[in-house]
């Protein structure tokens, strides 16, 4: 079984923090429009909560498709290599 090394964990966490920052900026830009007050208005709250969930679902889907693509690529390469390695 592959072990998750400490440096992998650190990288993962770093990525998580990066995502956190990106989505905050993104959802802020898209949802917060009212600067006549310091308070975050209820519609801004619901918008950003939906934004957060949508963003996470989106990143999950992209990740899934990306992995599928690479699996396909590796299979194609393996098939090619397999053909070349065929004993006659």
């Amino acid at each position: 079984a592959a072990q998750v090394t400490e440096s992998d964990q650190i990288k993962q966490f770093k990525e998580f923090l990066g995502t956190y920052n990106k989505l905050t900026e993104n959802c802020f830009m898209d949802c917060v429009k009212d600067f006549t007050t310091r308070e975050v208005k209820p519609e801004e709250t619901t918008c950003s909560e939906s934004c957060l969930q949508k963003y996470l679902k989106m990143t999950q889907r992209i990740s899934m498709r990306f992995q599928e693509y690479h699996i396909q690529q590796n299979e194609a390469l393996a098939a090619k290599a397999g053909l070349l390695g065929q004993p006659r």
Partner: protein
Amino acid sequence: MDPMKAQQLAAELEVEMMADMYNRMTNACHKKCVPPHYKEAELSKGEAVCLDRCVAKYLDLHERLGRKLTELSVQDEEAMRKAAAGTS
């Protein structure tokens, strides 16, 4: 630089490049496919399909451009070598 080190460095740089590419792709497909409305937390069917297509196209383009870029760099290098040889 000894060849082993060069190869290792190349591999590390490629990993870094892939990570950067992934981030840019996520950004691009987000902009292209998810309109900033956020009425609901779920991805709509249209948004989901758009994301799938976006990822496929982005990766295809990345590959294509990589090949073309290599081609052009090789041509460029040869042209420079010929020019240098011509002047010596």
